[in-house]
């Protein structure tokens, strides 16, 4: 009997406690920079697409929400012909970001993607591509790659020496 009255009193005192609810649209919670939200495709410092169409993200995706088709330009540089993410299936696990060898696909701290039409959750390459470099600045895959795809000549890349002429005797 007494414990019942006591619990009624304690519950009543909760009227004056601090609310735990965050009034969302007016007050937003802090999201850490590594928070996994919307997926973007970044560009390298020369404003070219970083994605090389290797399909590793599509293979890593546990819900198969990424589909793409790789193609090459006249210099032999690979890029995706289309790149499509179905965000109605995406679980924001970030495996695609981990799988990506060129830091192209990245997850950013934005989650406000609500739509009235389900079809609008399918993002095409134009929707995914951003102008910036995302989390990894200054990285350009074709500058460190072993092939010449119109970005740099042989021996002109980063961390790369000019080729040695094996027929010369001089060091």
């Amino acid at each position: 009997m007494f414990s019942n009255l006591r619990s009624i009193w304690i519950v009543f005192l909760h009227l004056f406690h601090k609310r735990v609810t965050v009034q969302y649209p007016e007050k937003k919670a802090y999201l850490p920079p590594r928070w996994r939200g919307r997926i973007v495709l970044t560009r390298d410092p020369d404003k070219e697409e970083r994605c090389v169409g290797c399909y590793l993200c599509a293979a890593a995706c546990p819900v198969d929400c990424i589909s793409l088709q790789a193609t090459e330009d006249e210099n032999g540089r690979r890029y995706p012909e289309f790149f499509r993410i179905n965000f109605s299936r995406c679980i924001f696990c970030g495996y695609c970001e981990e799988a990506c060898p060129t830091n192209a696909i990245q997850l950013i701290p934005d989650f406000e993607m609500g739509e009235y039409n389900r079809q609008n959750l399918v993002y095409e390459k134009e929707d995914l591509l951003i102008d910036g470099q995302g989390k990894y600045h200054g990285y350009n895959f074709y500058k460190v790659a072993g092939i010449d795809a119109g970005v740099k000549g042989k021996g002109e890349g980063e961390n790369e020496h000019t080729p040695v002429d094996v027929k010369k005797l001089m060091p």
Partner: protein
Amino acid sequence: MGEHVSYVLSVIAILLVLVSIAAGLIWLERRMLALWQDRFGPNRVGPFGTLQVVADMIKIFFKEDWIPRFADKKVFILAPTIIMITILMSFAIIPFSPEIGVVDFNIGLLFFLAMSSLGAYSVVLAGWASNNKYSLLGAMRGSAQMISYEVFMGLSLMGVVILSGTFSMRGIVLAQQTRWFFIPQFVGFVIFFIAGIAEAHRLPFDIPEAESELVAGYHSEYSGMKFGMFFVGEYLGITLISALITTLFFGGWLGFHFLPPIFWFLIKMFSFILVFILLRASLPRPRYDQLMSIGWKILLPISLLNILITGALVLYFH
């Protein structure tokens, strides 16, 4: 002629005000429960979320009203109307202020007791007609609860009747001009409050509904506006019990002069409604056999003793 018209108009006005208070309680309860649980509750639609009621009403009016094929159709339709009608009829005897009130029966209190007993049919018939095991269990619990609280609810009020010497609600209010009856009849007040919670099927005595055990108890199969009638009936029941406690134990419209009598009535009534909501926020639900044993073994003897002592004292002093 004009007198009759104004009387009918005032009855309709009371009906409309009561139903809108009951609908407004949906918002009040959600809001207050939220505050007691460190949340905010519905605060988006309209100022402080008050238009939430309108949104809920629109939703419930346009919901599909489905009658299960296995249900007993006539009784299924009849059951929700019983609770609305009996509770609204009980409001006829409540004196809201010296001028406002539907009728002043000289057997007002007995009329309320009769109507509240009839209200139990709503639960039993709804559960039976639904032809569903959870509904039937809810109805069975409802009847078990009814036979345990109904007895001491009537007896707990007899102390008030002894002190005031009348069954008329207006007479009872006027008898409280020197002191409110919750002082001499504190035991009767507590017992009637407990019985009133059980009568309104509110937590901690929402045993026939018991969402966590019986889906929704006796109204599991109801949808649309029929469910809405049970829902509004429940809130009307809270309002009715609060109005009765105000009238019988807290001096009805009596109060200080700086506010008109109807305001005193409403202030007292709404404080008891808030107590009802607070009880819902804080207390767990007992088993129905626990309620029955408390009712029969503790509260019934106490209310009998209360009548005995009150009667003896009244006889001694007069």
